[in-house]
C-alpha cells in the first residue's frame, strides 16, 4: 500500500500552484516529500531539471525549498528574530557569538518589506496575534526559500481580515519570483491566488487545471470522484 502514486507536478518561478483534495487524499504526503521530511520510496524530484534526493529537511532547505507548516513551526517563547533565524542563527567574531543585533535589524527590514506589522522583533512569538504569527512564518520562508515555498493551509482558522493580509503576503512572494505550492481546503482562496490547481484523490492525481479555465464545480467534482 502506498500513500501516493502517479503524481506529476511542476511549479514554475513566480507561479502559485494549489494542491487540493479531501482529507487523506495525500496532500500532506506531497508536502512532506518536497520538504524532505519523508523521502519518496520511488519517483523523482527535480529542481531546475536536476534530480535531487532529500535525506532530511536540511537537504531541501539547502536547495532553496522552505515550508510554512500548518502549525507554523514557531518556538513561541522565543523572540520573533530568533524564530526568523531558527537553525540558521547569525554569528560574529572569532568566538562565533550570536549576532543578535544583526538578526534584529534584518528581521525588522524583512517584516517591513512584506508589510508584516509587528512593533518589535524582540517580542516573544506568543505575544503576537494569529495573523502576525502567520506573517512571521511566511516571512521566514520568504527570507530563506530561494526557489520554492510550500504552504500547508496557511490561513486555516483565521479571520477574514487576517486571511486577506496573509494572501497579500503570498502574492508578494510570488511577485518576488518564488515558486509557491499552496495546500488549501478553501476553493475560494485557490481561485483567488493560484495559477493552476492540482487535484488529488486517494493518493493519486486526478488532474491539473488552469484556474482561469476551470470552475469550482469542476474541481469539486474531481475531488469527490464524480468527474475524472
Amino acid at each position, binding site marked *: 500500500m502506498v500513500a501516493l502514486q502517479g503524481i506529476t507536478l511542476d511549479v514554475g518561478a513566480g507561479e502559485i500552484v494549489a494542491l487540493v483534495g479531501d482529507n487523506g487524499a495525500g496532500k500532506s504526503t506531497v508536502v512532506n516529500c518536497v520538504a524532505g521530511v519523508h523521502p519518496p520510496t520511488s519517483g523523482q524530484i527535480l529542481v531546475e531539471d536536476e534530480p535531487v534526493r532529500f535525506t532530511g529537511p536540511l537537504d531541501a*532547505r539547502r536547495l532553496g525549498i522552505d515550508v510554512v507548516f500548518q502549525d507554523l513551526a*514557531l*518556538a*513561541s517563547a522565543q523572540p520573533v528574530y530568533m524564530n526568523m533565524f531558527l537553525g540558521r542563527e547569525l554569528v560574529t567574531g572569532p568566538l562565533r557569538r*550570536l549576532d543578535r543585533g544583526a538578526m534584529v535589524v534584518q528581521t525588522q527590514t524583512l517584516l517591513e518589506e512584506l508589510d508584516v506589522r509587528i512593533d518589535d522583533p524582540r517580542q516573544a512569538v506568543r505575544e503576537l496575534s494569529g495573523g502576525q504569527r502567520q506573517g512571521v512564518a511566511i516571512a521566514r520562508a520568504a527570507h530563506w526559500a530561494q526557489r520554492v515555498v510550500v504552504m500547508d493551509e496557511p490561513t486555516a482558522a483565521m479571520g477574514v481580515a487576517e486571511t486577506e493580509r496573509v494572501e497579500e503576503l503570498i502574492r508578494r512572494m510570488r511577485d518576488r519570483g518564488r515558486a509557491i505550492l499552496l495546500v488549501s481546503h478553501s476553493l475560494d482562496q485557490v481561485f483567488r491566488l493560484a495559477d493552476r490547481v492540482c487535484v488529488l484523490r486517494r493518493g493519486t492525481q486526478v488532474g491539473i487545471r488552469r484556474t482561469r479555465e476551470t470552475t469550482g464545480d469542476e474541481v469539486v467534482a474531481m475531488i469527490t470522484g464524480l468527474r475524472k
Partner: protein
Amino acid sequence: MISRRYFVYVAFLALLAFFAITLHDDGFLSQTNLLNIVRQTTPVTVMAVAVVFVLSAGEIDLSLGAVVALSALVTADVMQDHGAVLGVAAGLGVGMGVGAVNGGLVAVLRLPSFLVTLASMGVVAGLARTITDLRSVAVEDRGFIDIFGSGDVGPVPGLAFWALGAVALGQFGFRHRRFGAHVLAVGDNRAAARATGIRVDRVKFAVLVISGTAAALAGILYTGRVQGASYTLGEQDLLTVIAAVVIGGTRLFGGQGSVIGALVGSLIMGMLTNGLILSGLSSSEQLVAQGLLLLLAITLTARPEGDPI
C-alpha cells in the same frame, strides 16, 4: 506587580533583608558567614548552571545527586594510588559517562529523560555504595584540597572562582552561542526545532552529558571541601538544585532559562539553609522549608510568561 523575570532578584533581596534583620545578633551578615554561604553554595551553583540547559531543553536529570557521590568516591579512591590529576580525570569521566549513557538512551532510543535518569539514579547510587562498602574515603593531597575546596585567594574562597567560572562559561554557552539558542528551541517546540534543521537528538544528548559532568565536578568540589568522599555526598542536592534553577526563572517544561537567575537562585537556597541553621531549625525542618520554596517556584513557573505575579 512584578514580572516573573525579576522575581528572583526581589526574592533574593527580600530574603537577605529578612535574615539580616532577624539574625543580626547571630552574625548573619558577618564576612565569615557570607563567605561560608558562598563555599556551601558552589557545588549547587555548578550543577544549577548545567540544569538550566537540561530543563530549558525540556528534559530533566534526576541522577545528579547520585553522580555527585559516585564521582567523589571514584576521585578520592583513584587519587590514593594514582595522584590527584588521574583522580580528578576519573571522577569527571564517571560523570561524563553517566551523562552519555543517559543522553544516549534519551536521544537514540527516544526514552523519556525522567524515567531514564530515575533508573540511572538507582544504579549509580547503588554503585556508590558498593565500590567502597559504604565506607568514606579520606583525601590528604594538599594541592587538590587547596584547588578544589579549602583554598582561598586573599579573602575570597577558591570555591567562589569555580562558581564564577561555571556561571561565566554557562552564560556564554547559553546566551551567546548557537547551542544555547538550539537548547531553547528544542525545549520550546521540538517539532519546530526539527523542522528548521536543528539536530534535536544531539541537543538532548549534549545537555545530559553537560549535566553529568557538572555533577561530577560538584562531587570533586565537595571532596576538596570536606577532604574526603562518602556515598552520602549530594544526597539532598537534587531538590536544592532544581529549586535554585526554577526560582531563577528557568521554566520546568522547557523553552526558557536563565544562568544568572540560577546563580541567584542557588544563593537564595544557600542563604535559606544558612539562615535556618542560624535560627536553630533541624535539617528535617530545613528540608520542609526548601520543599515549600520549590513548590512556590513551580507554581510561579507554571504561569505563562508575562503574567504579573
